[in-house]
């Protein structure tokens, strides 16, 4: 159950060689064959398990674009080689068909596989440890009710490191805090439910919290903004730079539909997250929104009047010829481009995602209506791109300009690794164009 996505690169890069050996051992471990358990029939339990697995975003990391749901095999390129997510369908040979409920709960709680070997911490058991046994049981029941898919785990292609000193156990000792989530009795039920989901199953911090050199989420900087698949995951706490302050209703709608009229469409690695959230009970999404919006506090809208428009610069001409058609057009969100004064891409703390979106665009969804944007990867050179980003920042955000060094660094990083996380269709959910514009 090699959960990979959130901050994957950094996690693996930060891990020592010993972890890799341990990781290999865990995937090598072969349990004795047992008969696949009969699919449980408790419909309510399955429905809850389905919703919870969506809240945990299991499918995204465990499904190849051309593969079966939950059958794993998604490759994640890291500094140490390629790691593949595992098959979590109930296939006995190649999946988790031989796992007992106890095995499953132990993996979620303690980060060990069926044979007791440590799992890569990129499977976010640092969050999943907070999930209740009851919820784990529902997720287990749901996964075991899926169609078994024979899909052997590709061998992780990791470079054998020279020095083996530490072990995964050391890492766990240092950074892994097992144990249940504790409610804050001073807070509302919704807040506590939201906190439980955000910090536990939802593992939002996996992307939205910065990581230290060892690849662990930095204590005390929860949800300050992190990285996922080459994309910046924005701060979703009091440091949020959202140009329009989020309300509970807006965030609930955003999580449910994958877009919101004042905030734009979910894109990059967030798109598959909202895709999975589309069908979970709305009260859970509202609880997440309650918690996050409370964390964000009442940061005032920082709308500054747009700086005087410089229409003669090259960036202005690029905007007029390449961007304005959609971003100043008449078609509303989600299929029209966002009005850039509302864009976190322009007002956020990092220009990384602005570059990612310009370079790689928003790709088409397979057979589903979804917002699209063309990729401009080959069209503009680095100088034009940094100038355009700087111009957009001044023109539309009224925030402190990004420094030249920051622009150059983030563009370089976006070119180096942003393409991977740009493969997801934006919005995530099938959006009916006839109803799209009327949603919140």
């Amino acid at each position: 159950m090699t959960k990979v996505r959130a901050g994957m690169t950094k996690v693996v890069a930060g891990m020592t060689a010993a972890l890799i050996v341990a990781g290999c051992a865990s995937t090598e471990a072969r349990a004795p064959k047992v008969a696949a358990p009969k699919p449980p029939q408790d419909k309510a339990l399955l429905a809850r398990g389905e919703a919870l697995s969506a809240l945990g975003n299991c499918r995204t990391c465990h499904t190849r674009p051309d593969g079966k749901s939950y059958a794993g095999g998604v490759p994640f390129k890291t500094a140490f080689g390629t790691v593949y997510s595992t098959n979590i369908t109930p296939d006995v040979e190649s999946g988790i068909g031989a796992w007992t409920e106890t095995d499953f709960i132990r993996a979620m709680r303690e980060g060990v596989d069926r044979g007791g070997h440590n799992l890569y911490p990129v499977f976010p058991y640092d969050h999943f440890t907070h999930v209740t046994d009851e919820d784990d049981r529902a997720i287990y029941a749901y996964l075991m009710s899926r169609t078994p898919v024979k899909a052997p785990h590709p061998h992780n292609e990791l470079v054998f490191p020279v020095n083996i000193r530490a072990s995964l156990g050391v890492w766990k000792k240092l950074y892994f805090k097992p144990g249940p989530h504790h409610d804050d009795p001073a807070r509302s039920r919704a807040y506590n439910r939201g906190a439980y989901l955000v910090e536990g199953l939802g593992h939002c911090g996996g992307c939205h919290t910065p990581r230290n050199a060892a690849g662990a989420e930095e204590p005390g900087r929860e949800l300050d903004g992190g990285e996922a698949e080459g994309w910046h995951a924005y701060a979703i706490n009091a440091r949020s730079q959202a140009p329009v302050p989020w309300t509970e209703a807006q965030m609930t709608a955003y999580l449910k539909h994958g877009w919101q009229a004042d905030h734009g469409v979910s894109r990059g690695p967030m798109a598959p997250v909202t895709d999975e959230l589309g069908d979970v009970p709305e009260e859970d999404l509202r609880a997440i929104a309650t918690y996050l919006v409370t964390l964000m506090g009442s940061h005032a809208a920082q709308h500054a009047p747009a700086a005087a428009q410089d229409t003669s610069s090259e960036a202005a001409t690029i905007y007029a010829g390449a961007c304005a058609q959609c971003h100043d057009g008449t078609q509303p969100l989600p299929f029209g481009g966002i009005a850039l004064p509302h864009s976190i891409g322009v007002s956020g703390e990092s220009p990384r995602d602005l570059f990612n979106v310009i370079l790689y665009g928003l790709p088409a969804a397979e057979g589903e209506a979804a917002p699209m944007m063309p990729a401009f990867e080959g069209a503009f050179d680095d100088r034009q791109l940094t100038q355009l980003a700087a111009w957009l920042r001044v023109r539309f955000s009224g925030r402190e300009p990004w420094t030249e060094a920051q622009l150059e660094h983030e563009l370089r990083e976006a070119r180096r690794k942003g393409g991977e996380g740009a493969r997801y269709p934006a919005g995530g959910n099938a959006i009916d164009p006839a109803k799209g514009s009327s949603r919140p």
Partner: protein
Amino acid sequence: MRPARRDFLRRSGALVVSFALSPAARAQQPGGHDADGLPGSLRVAPFLDSWIRIDAGGAITVCTGKAELGQGIKTALLQVAAEELRVPFERLTIVTADTQATANEGFTAGSTSMQDSGTAIRNAAAQVRELLEAEAARRWNTGVEGVHSDGGFAMGPGGQRAAYGELASGLSLHVQAKPASRFVDPRDYRVVNRPIPRVDIPGKVAGDVAYVHDLRLPGMLHARVVRPPGYGAKLVALDARAVESQPGVVKVVRDGDFVAVVAEREWTAVKAMRALAEMAKWQESTRLPDAASMPRVVLGLKSEDTVIHDKRATVPAGARTFEAAYTRPYQIHGSIGPACAVAHLEEGKLTVWSHTQGVYPDRQAIAELLGMPPAKVRVIHAEGAGCYGHNAADDAAGDAALIASHVPGRPIRVQWMREQEHAWEPFGPAMVAKVRAAMDASGRIVDWDYGVWSNTHSMRPGPAGNLLAGQHAAKAFKPAPPRPLPQPAGGGDRNAIPLYAFPSAHVVHHFIPEMPLRISALRALGAYLNVFAIESFMDELAIAAGADPVEFRLRHLEDARGRDVIQLAASRFGWKPGVRAEGGRGRGFAFARYKNLAAYCAIACEVDVDAESGRARLVRAVAAVDSGQVVNPDGLRNQIEGAILQSASWTLYEAVSFDAARVRSIDWATYPILRFGAVPETVEVHIVDRPGMPFLGSGEAGQGPTGAAIANAVADAVGRRVRDIPLKAARLRSTRG
């Protein structure tokens, strides 16, 4: 298209244009009564020189009233002519649909080009060769039996040789065709039934002038139309002065609710169009039906019912009855190149270059629109991107003509924008089919009761009111009243009569005159849904009977050629009764004879469905087709492959989105179609060879069978039947919702 025009004049200048004088030219369409017993389109243009012209230098020109739509018709017709004339393929050139140069063959539609034009050209070519051989015999004073032709020469028994050009110079080809011809024996074919490379492809892959979009006439201006926001919207106010005074803007044309801008440069026109669109105030009043309940809306509209098949027999007692309903939504043609046309009004004569499917009907509509005599209007076909039926091509021609009438003297090029094409083209109509059948204990269908509810499938021009420009102009024309298209080809009821030998069958066409959305002919017309319904239901009945779907079809089919394609597709696919695909995969089969009178096509396919996401993909398809005498086997394969992939896209993904006021699917993000990520692993097309048999139209034969085969495979994969097109992920998800 200066070069093209010059080419054309060079080719046709020396030739006598005589078809217009022929008595039968009055007829608008081929396929009518066959008083003289003439085959194919010889009925509408019975003189040989309407089809084949030979100048003194020996240059041979083939003329057809049909148009190249990307189906390869130029190449196929040249093959037929070269074969029967016994000249090398490369020696021939072809002139296609042009009201001043070719026969009036109506529309290039309905997979009829080979049956109509191919048959005419084949006969004309054979008869021209006979005339040339007779002329040679006369000169050599020998019997005609001793003369034969090869390589563009007539050859005599004593080794005499005479070039066609030389023989033709002393001969008039303005001769009435005979009903029968002396054809080349199919066993001696050298050009026909060969995969001759298409004549148009090299130029297209090199960027030559190939499409109407590429025409650049001297002094040409660029126009863009400002379409209303929705059907029936009325222009309330538009102050165009600011736009009109912009540099490079030549004129803002306002003619009733028709607004367009004409500019020296294309980008200027685009920007001016957007500025005008923002300034224009429209009054919208149209209420479109609820898209989500379309099937119910369709069934609720008033219909005119016709029993099109009535063969009653007593249904034996004890038969089990089954019923089901199948639906399709509005779908678009979705040409990759939005419509374009060039029009030039000069000295009272209007010339229009258009990718219309019917130059003569389009001329009729434009003449009516502008109040001009048809003789003063010339419509020349110039290729567009693939149209797949009646799309916006004619509308763009009407737009260009109307704008040209406001800006005489300079050629006007109108290019539709993507969102205009998506929102304003006439869609393939939403339809519903209901079927009830009774099956006896032995698994034989003993009664069949079928009804299909549909609009017409043709609102083509002819009448000016069928053009958007005609509807929006100040002197507005009303669309012509819709009519059902007659059997046996049919419209909404195309392929509604089952080909299977049921002892008792009853089929009703519920024709719906009211058209809430603008519709017209989309490839295969009603056959797409009718075959989808019949072949899905056959599958459901086969399952109910515990029979293999292929065997079940054969059990009910007497038509030998139909049986052949079914057996060929099944065997090449490796279809094995009782064997089920594994791991979310499913197999499906379907069959139809297009229009019950054109090509036979059977398709077996395999799909992959991901139960959790509901995402279905076509993985593999194997088709077998019988088109009668094949002219170009590679062209035929290309057509069937294309039909399979296009129909897969229709079937899996496509539906027009609209709310109460407007069409909302206006680009490829809001109306997604098949992309390479979901393209099958393999597609095979196998051809049943039928030497010497009549040509059977094939361009649309694959649409229906593909849709049904996919639906059957999806049902096989997920164990649940989806009867509503498209088979979108949301409809296939296993447990959600």
